[in-house]
């Protein structure tokens, strides 16, 4: 088994009477695409929020490459190599797609020269290549607010990849996208992740996507990991069919 990139130990968090993380212990190995599935309210997004420092667990630890990152704010965790793409793309809507990436790379490389034109930075070609990798080269000069949801999703991932992360956490990368486009988008995403050599964890509801693109699947229920295995093992498990996929689907 490859190296452990991120590890959670006994994470606990409650929102009122709801236990969103109930003693979650999980290891994420480098080089894998791990899919997280489970019914709504199972705690999948909460898990991503804890791993990226957005919310703090009441108990437990998150370790990244062996370092305890539990108390760190999101920006410090990002600086260590954990990036995130969101269910609702988090972009700078008044900027173009290319500018979003240029801003990201400016943050990554700590570009602080007040007289340097952002459009003239040496990393511009690298960002144009990244846009090409996610299939959005045509959208480079289009203001984000004018783009379709599918393109925004891809650019959101490209922004995260611009940071050259070691681990990318994707929250429902194909939600809000037309069914006919889901596989095309995932094909592009997985291709980009491979080219960038990034380990990924993605929350997903579409079992077709999980079956095709995940190396491993973790099943969430009631705030904890109920099962873990290969897509073939998990998607045919009777508990998963009953609680997640649904009988007769």
């Amino acid at each position: 088994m490859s190296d452990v990139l991120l590890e959670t130990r006994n994470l606990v968090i409650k929102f009122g009477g709801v236990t969103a993380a109930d003693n979650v212990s999980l290891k994420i190995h480098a080089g894998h695409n791990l899919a997280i599935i489970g019914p709504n309210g199972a705690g999948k997004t909460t898990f991503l929020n804890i791993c990226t420092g957005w919310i703090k667990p009441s108990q437990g630890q998150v370790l990244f490459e062996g370092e305890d990152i539990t108390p760190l704010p999101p920006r410090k965790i990002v600086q260590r190599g954990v990036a995130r793409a969101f269910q609702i793309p988090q972009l700078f809507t008044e900027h173009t797609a290319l500018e979003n990436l240029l801003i990201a790379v400016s943050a990554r490389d700590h570009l602080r020269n007040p007289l340097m034109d952002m459009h003239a930075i040496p990393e511009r070609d690298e960002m144009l290549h990244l846009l090409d990798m996610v299939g959005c080269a045509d959208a480079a000069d289009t203001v984000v607010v004018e783009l379709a949801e599918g393109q925004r999703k891809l650019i959101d991932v490209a922004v995260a990849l611009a940071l050259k992360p070691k681990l990318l956490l994707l929250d429902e990368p194909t939600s809000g996208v037309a069914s006919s486009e889901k596989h095309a988008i995932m094909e592009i995403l997985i291709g980009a992740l491979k080219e960038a050599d990034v380990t990924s964890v993605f929350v997903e509801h579409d079992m077709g996507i999980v079956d095709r693109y995940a190396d491993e699947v973790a099943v969430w229920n009631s705030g904890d990991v109920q099962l873990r295995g290969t897509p073939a093992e998990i998607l045919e498990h009777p508990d998963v069919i009953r609680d997640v996929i649904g009988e007769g689907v």
Partner: protein
Amino acid sequence: MTTTTEQSKVNARMKNPLFLLWIIGILAIAAVPFAMPSLQLLVSFAMAKGLGVLGVTVLLRAGQVSFGHALYFGISAYAGAFLMASMPGTDFVIVMIAGTLGAVLAGLLVGLFVVRYRGIFFGMLNLAFSMIFWSILEKFYHYTGGADGIRLPRPTVLGNTLDHVQFELVLFYTAMVLMVALGWFTTRWFASPIGQLFQTIKTNETRLEYLGVSPRRALLSGYLLSAALCGVGGVMMGMAQGVVTPEYVWWVRSAEMVFIAVLGGAGSVQGAFLGALIYEFVRTYASVYAGDIWQMILGGFLLIIILFAPGGLIAILNSLFNRGSGKGGTGK
């Protein structure tokens, strides 16, 4: 390759009618002391105020409105006045630097606190700090001169003692050079990576945090720039008027800066100066010819701008000049 691209950019700019209009405008201002000497002081005031408005404009780019930025206008003027009072004969350049540093230092102290807040809380906290300073200026009469303020005697200029007319001329051209230089710098700063990071506060702080950047630190960088710009304007104004009073930090001054920024074109560098120039003219002549209703005239003027040209005066100019080429104008 790069040189060719840069050259083509310069050529394109030179052919832009709006750019040529700015050049003509600056040349026209430069001619004021000789062509229309009666307007010299008014234009000096407008340029000094324009620098303060530019400070407010910087924050508008991040979607934040400060209702207390006259604080930095006043602090720099008082810093210059205190310096002159304690060390008579201090040079003009030293007074400028001391005033600006005073504003930046105050901007750092206040900024570290207010950058935690956004929107109305940000605006009102700035107002609160400016009013606290106003109270200090009013109440500590023995140090500040109270409502009467402090006189700011004429400093030497690079070691030379100038008469009234010569000094006003130096002030005028210094203000003009600073207007051009700081306007250019702010434009470049907006286009730079650090300026772009600052401006993303307006649209998505969550993503900014997930880029590994502290939104508070990003806002603080712009806040310090805005305080410095207000500081430069304030100390210029203090020397131009020869006296600084608590009225410099009074809330009406802060509101006036926001008013001018919106009038000129919220977020526009050129708009800050154009707005300040027109505001000073309207204010001066409306108060002469329209007595007590000049505020109503200004209010009506702003109402028309907001209703019919929300991009401000600069957007009107942009649309006029870009109509031929089919380009729109945002004033930015």
